[in-house]
């Protein structure tokens, strides 16, 4: 194919709040453009990972090239780039956006504009994308397209008069969307003769091809046999194959050129050699500058992951290695715990990322793992003038060596129906939120802005938010920076032995409450032993909360005559089996469930 006519290319993505129909619309667009027949479609074709299908959210960026024969008689090439919808993956979203010239903003016809509608839309606008709205789910009885159109204009400030009214589920009016893509999304305007310059917006590891990088070409072109270079890592490799994306498959071609979205394979072994957001150029004829906007993916949340059975340490190691092949944002390093043995300290973009990895380890790799309490990264300023990032509470130096500590703080934006404003403001206050602003969207919807410490959000803030607003609240956040804070390390002692895996950093004033709740939870999880088991929470050796698991005696004292002996034997056999699921901490048997239970300290009160 000679250089493509860029004027017939449309690069766009779909942004929306969760569940507003992004993936369904993507499916319909693919269907309507004849790239796949209806029969060939499986539901939500772009999500080709099981987990994604279950959760209904897209985690990996995917792209697809489709051909559309427009009303004007011309053939257009659409490059649809699917983006993660979750706040944990903001950076990846922004790199995907950087590949596009336009974005379709889907808004649910009954739910209207929600927190992530706004967030994602602004993100798109900030990337200089042309955004046009589409009102979806008009088939629902509660749909109110006129109200929502007005909301879009008032709240977001983009024209919505001609917004297509569609039902992606039922395939209504999809044509209108396709036409709008032609008319409203600008064509790319790169220079096909300039040195090759492309943006990496994603990559995957394939066991045959090695690392496959997904790129948007801005200038120039690249073909098989050329030598490419990555700006960030300096890596140089020969191109083995280039091509573009059919739905769910790679379609090789001779070259990809300015304005196109496609892939490059080059016998790269390590996905870390290819950074999302990096610029690729021709090693023989490089471009002068990298594309803007590159950021190192920085983990926000850490936890320890240990094999439930120490014998499976190597399996865990291998599995993490494999996961990292496709997930450059996952970081891990070996660590040890007195309580749990050998394991890894893992870094994630957020709690969802952590949960997905946890699930994949358990499901895809069949591992039995124990995770310690997730925590954020704190900055510790020592008295000797040095400062370091604390990812594992066990590494906190003695208080006498600490000058002060800082914790990460985020800007949180919460959208809620007005009747719950008070309840949600109370929640934010409880979580040490600092009130910034409150705006009314219409008479009954409010946007609250709070600065909040990240460690107050990562556990169960989202769940608490939902339950206190009967599900109507939505929320988005962005890292603001680090702020000085009074923090302490809370230790948990079981039978007077400190269990390092249960330690965590907590805001000093919340320590008592948190310690008390953990002791209560643990009391329920730890089985009764032949002796009393004290469970204590302590700060620097000072016990601040305590519960006791009473000793059991009755069973031991029961009669044991001739006929009772075989019954007792059976009981012993059962106990032997049960012991296998326990961790021994000193003389106390602690079930795996105890470690997990204390992580979920819900706001039941």
């Amino acid at each position, binding site marked *: 194919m000679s250089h493509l006519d860029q004027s017939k290319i449309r690069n766009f993505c779909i942004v929306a709040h969760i569940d507003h129909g992004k993936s369904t619309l993507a499916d319909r667009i693919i269907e309507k453009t004849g790239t796949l027949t209806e029969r060939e479609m499986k539901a939500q074709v772009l999500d080709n990972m099981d987990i994604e299908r279950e959760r209904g959210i897209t985690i990996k960026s995917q792209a697809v090239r489709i051909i559309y024969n427009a009303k004007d008689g011309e053939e257009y090439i659409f490059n649809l780039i699917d983006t993660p919808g979750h706040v944990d993956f903001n950076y990846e979203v922004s790199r995907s956006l950087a590949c596009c010239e336009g974005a379709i903003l889907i808004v649910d016809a009954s739910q209207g504009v929600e927190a992530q509608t706004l967030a994602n839309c602004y993100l798109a606008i900030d990337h200089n994308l042309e955004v046009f709205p589409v009102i979806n789910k008009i088939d629902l009885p509660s749909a109110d397209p006129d109200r929502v159109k007005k909301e879009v204009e008032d709240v977001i400030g983009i024209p919505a008069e001609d917004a297509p009214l569609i039902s992606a589920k039922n395939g209504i009016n999809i044509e209108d969307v396709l036409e709008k893509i032609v008319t409203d999304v600008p064509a790319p305007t790169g220079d096909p003769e300039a040195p090759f310059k492309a943006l990496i917006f994603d990559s995957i590891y394939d066991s045959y091809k090695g690392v496959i990088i997904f790129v948007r070409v801005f200038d120039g072109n690249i073909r098989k046999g050329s030598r490419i270079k990555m700006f960030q890592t300096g890596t140089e490799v020969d191109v083995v194959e280039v091509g573009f994306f059919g739905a769910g498959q790679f379609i090789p071609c001779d070259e990809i050129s300015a304005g196109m979205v496609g892939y490059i394979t080059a016998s790269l072994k390590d996905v870390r050699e290819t950074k999302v957001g990096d610029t690729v150029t021709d090693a023989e004829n490089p471009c002068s500058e990298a594309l803007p906007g590159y950021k190192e993916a920085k983990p926000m949340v850490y936890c320890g992951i240990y094999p439930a059975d120490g014998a499976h340490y190597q399996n865990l190691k291998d599995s993490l290695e494999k996961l990292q092949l496709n997930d450059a944002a996952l970081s891990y390093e070996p660590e040890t715990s007195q309580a749990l043995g050998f394991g890894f300290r893992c870094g994630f973009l957020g709690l969802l990322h952590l949960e997905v990895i946890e699930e994949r380890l358990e499901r895809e790799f069949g591992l039995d793992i124990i995770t310690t309490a997730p925590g954020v990264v704190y900055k510790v300023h020592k008295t000797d003038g040095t400062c370091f990032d604390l990812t594992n509470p066990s590494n906190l130096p003695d208080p006498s060596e600490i000058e002060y500590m800082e914790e990460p703080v985020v800007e949180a934006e919460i959208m809620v129906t007005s009747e719950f404003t008070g309840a949600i403001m109370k929640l934010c206050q409880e979580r040490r939120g600092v009130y910034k602003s409150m705006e009314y969207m219409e008479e009954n919807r409010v946007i609250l802005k709070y600065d909040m410490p990240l460690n107050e959000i990562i556990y169960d803030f989202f769940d608490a938010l939902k339950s206190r607003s009967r599900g109507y609240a939505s929320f988005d956040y962005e890292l603001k920076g680090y702020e000085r804070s009074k923090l302490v390390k809370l230790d948990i002692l079981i039978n007077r032995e400190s269990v390092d895996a249960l330690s965590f950093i907590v805001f000093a004033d919340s320590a008592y409450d948190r310690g008390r709740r953990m002791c209560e939870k643990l009391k329920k999880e730890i089985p009764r032993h032949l002796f009393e088991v004290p469970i204590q929470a302590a700060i620097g050796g000072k016990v601040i909360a305590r519960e006791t698991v*009473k000793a059991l*005696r*009755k069973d*031991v*004292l*029961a*009669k*044991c*005559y*001739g*006929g009772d*002996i*075989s019954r*007792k*034997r059976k009981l*012993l056999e059962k106990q032997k089996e049960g012991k296998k699921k326990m961790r021994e901490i000193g*003389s106390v048997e602690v079930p795996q469930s105890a470690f997990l239970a204390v992580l979920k300290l819900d706001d039941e009160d």
Partner: protein
Amino acid sequence: MKKDLSIYIHIPFCLHKCVYCDFLSFAGRSISDQVRYVSAINNEIRLYKPFASRYLVKTIYFGGGTPSLIDESLIESMLETIRDTFEVDRFAEITIEANPGTLKYADLLQYREFGINRLSIGMQTADDELLKKLGRIHDFEGFEKCFQDARRAGFENISVDLMSGIPGQAIHSYVDTLTRVTELNPEHISSYSLQVEEGTPLANNAELLSEIPDESIDREMYAMTKRVLSASGYERYEFSNYAKPGYESRHNHVYWTGGEYIGLGTSAASLFKGERFTNIRDVEEYMQVLTEAGDEISNGTSPELLYEAAAKQLRTDITVMYVNNRMEEFMFLGLRLIKGVSRADFRSGVGNDLASVFGPVVNK
């Protein structure tokens, strides 16, 4: 050298089922049933003829149910059959369990004549209200009279069964019970904390269940037992068993030290020739198998074959006592006794050295 053997006989008949009882027992069975049952027991005894010569019977125990309910002549016939089949030690401990509501002085005299030298009477509590709650058929006065009758009849070894943690029982009531018992001065006292067993009337009675004293009171009561009884000269020799020196239950001791015993009758358990097993619970089936066996005995069928055949039909839950089983049991049963487990006994009983098997656990 003959080996020691103990014999247990289960009599599953009662006048009325106590609410807490999970032993195999039936109320309302006719005399003819009882006669047939005992006949079956006698056949079961005879089945052991092939092995009897190797053993010396040291203890015999009639349990149930209510052994004292059936006609004394039936007890006599079982003892006779045992004596015909086995050699019984001159000083064997022969116990019968009794319910005060079913004993008359005359019966007690008869028991003495048959050679029964130990009586175990179920008292449970001195509190008549509580006795009613438990579904017992007697009151304290009835118990006292029974006790005095037993003494008159010449019983010099009497054991009394008590119970703590009864629904509605307060600590003072239990202490009162303990005091009254010590006043009567039996040689042996057992006191168990009430355990709610699945399938018993108590387990299905929410009201009664709610009246069961809570754990801390239960523990107080347990502590009280030792306090009151040791003040009156009773030594605690097992978790829940107390005796005047020399009057420990020799039969039960066998359970706790891995000795051999034959259990006769429905649901009876045995540890015999290296195997643990339990007899079936169905009374009709039991009687049928043994009536047939009895016919075969008369026909002159080989006793060894008969034994094997009957064993197959009567026994369930068979465990071969390999060394590791024996070692485990030696410990968890032996440690019930206050005297504990000695290395010497372990070695002679099991054959291995205690320290090398259980050392690490003991040190912990």
